[in-house]
């Protein structure tokens, strides 16, 4: 009976739950799904992580390669993110070049990296003008159940913290790089940006961490990225219903709380990996 009503009138079905201040899966309006993170599982990648936000699963693998620094910034390296949404994660996507949602997500991650200064690009430079590290961050969504942006940001952060780069010396005589694969060091992560996504219902109600069904029924979405000092790194609001200033303020305070939760989880994971 309930399942039939849900198929015919999904919005009404949802409104009944929202009136009672809860959602069909039992969560409160401001509650996140269970978040789990697993770091360093892919041996061939220089850094990797797997993040599960409820059913949404994103895996991030980072490969570090050598490249020439950009001509307009000879003392900087590159960080190249790429979000991949394939038919594997949801029947909505077609195989082939990245669709609209994937391009938007990739650009969002690039903006987060740029604005939050997760890594100083100068740290990636080995020899100004000649050699720098290029970090290819490939985020593959394995299961799309809503809230891709949060999962991708978290996966990227965890993978970057897991990356180990080998030591490189430039030999003066041959001007070639010499790489010592046995000696590796971690990256210097300066900030920890965490994303919190909201969905707007009927132009008024805000819910946190929408699932895929909720994203379809929503009239607008909003993503707030904060770092540990409570500073705002990035705000992503692609159209949709308008929000008052007060509501935005609420969102930002929720984002700050979420940041603390995520930071605690990450610290636990990395502390448990220490003896290596």
């Amino acid at each position, binding site marked *: 009976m309930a399942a039939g009503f849900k198929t015919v009138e999904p919005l009404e079905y949802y409104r009944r739950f929202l009136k009672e201040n809860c959602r069909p899966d039992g969560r409160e309006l401001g509650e996140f799904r269970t978040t789990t993170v697993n770091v360093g599982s892919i041996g*061939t990648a220089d850094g990797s992580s797997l993040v599960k936000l409820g*059913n949404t699963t994103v895996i991030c693998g980072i*490969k570090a*390669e050598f490249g020439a620094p950009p001509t307009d910034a000879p003392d900087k390296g590159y960080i190249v993110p790429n979000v991949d949404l394939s038919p594997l994660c949801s*029947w909505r996507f077609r195989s082939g070049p*990245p669709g609209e949602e994937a391009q938007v997500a990739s650009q969002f991650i690039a903006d987060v990296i740029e604005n939050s200064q997760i890594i100083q690009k100068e740290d990636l430079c080995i020899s100004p003008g000649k050699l720098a590290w290029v970090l290819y961050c*490939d985020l593959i969504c394995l299961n799309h159940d809503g809230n891709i942006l949060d999962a991708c940001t978290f996966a990227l952060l965890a993978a970057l913290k897991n990356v180990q780069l080998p030591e*490189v010396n430039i030999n003066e005589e041959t001007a070639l790089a010499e*790489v010592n694969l046995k000696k590796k060091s971690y990256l210097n992560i300066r900030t920890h940006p965490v994303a919190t996504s909201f969905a707007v219902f009927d132009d008024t109600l805000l819910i946190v961490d929408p699932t895929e069904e909720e994203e379809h029924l929503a009239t607008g979405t909003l993503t707030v990225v904060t770092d540990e000092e409570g500073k705002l790194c990035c705000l992503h609001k692609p159209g949709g219903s308008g929000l008052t200033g007060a509501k935005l303020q609420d969102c930002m305070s929720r984002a700050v709380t979420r940041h603390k939760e995520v930071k605690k989880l990450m610290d636990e994971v990395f502390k448990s990996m220490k003896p290596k």
Partner: protein
Amino acid sequence: MPGDHRRIRGPEESQPPQLYAVGEDEEPAARDPTRLRPVYARAGLLSQAKGSAYLEAGGTKVLCAVSGPLQAEGGERGGGPAGTGGEAPAALRGRLLCDFRRAPFSGRRRRAPPGGGEERELALALQEALEPAVRLGRYPRAQLEVSALLLEDGGSALAAALTAAALALADAGIEMYDLVVGCGLSHTPGPSPTWLLDPTLLEEERAAASLTVALMPVLNQVAGLLGSGEGGPTESWAEAVRLGLEGCQRLYPVLQQCLVRAARRRGAAAPP
């Protein structure tokens, strides 16, 4: 990548640090040529796909998802295998579309996302091996989409993808005659060449020839065979195929267990 405006731009070209590394190459350790690496298989883990399976064998990790049956695209299908006796006429049979992708971070060198010829060849091999096992006549004018993603390549990637794809199809409830189990082999070069079952990445890289066999264990019929390289006389290849088929049979009980567990989990989770 120059010209690809849909992705974030990186440098024009880049080289892996391994090219400049100072150090010795590793040699694969000697081992029993018929050993199979322990396999971890789990079905039914992706909520958005109709059926899914994850397979891990040594360092090889493959994830496969199946969606469908969906409306077939492209309208009338003209040719197709002519009169494969018994089943529905070719124009009414369902289609199996396979897609094989390597994650960019799965190998030693990063592979940029548009895969290229090798992935298409492997996707075709997947399709040809899975078709004999699936009852496509039961899904007229529909298509089944199988997507295999290789997360980490530790040797015998195609074999693992075949097995994962068959598990995913079974998990999706698609009618099948039998499972398909894949096994990889590689031929060591040198003075005393031997065929090694289930090679690791190191062994595969140094091989003079490689072979992947797909078997339907209960029917005991070979579903697919893909081999290349210089393997020597035909008896050597025949011996390799025999070794591969044995390996597939040994793997079958693990997969049966996996599907039973997945079915139990589904039964327990289903709403009353």
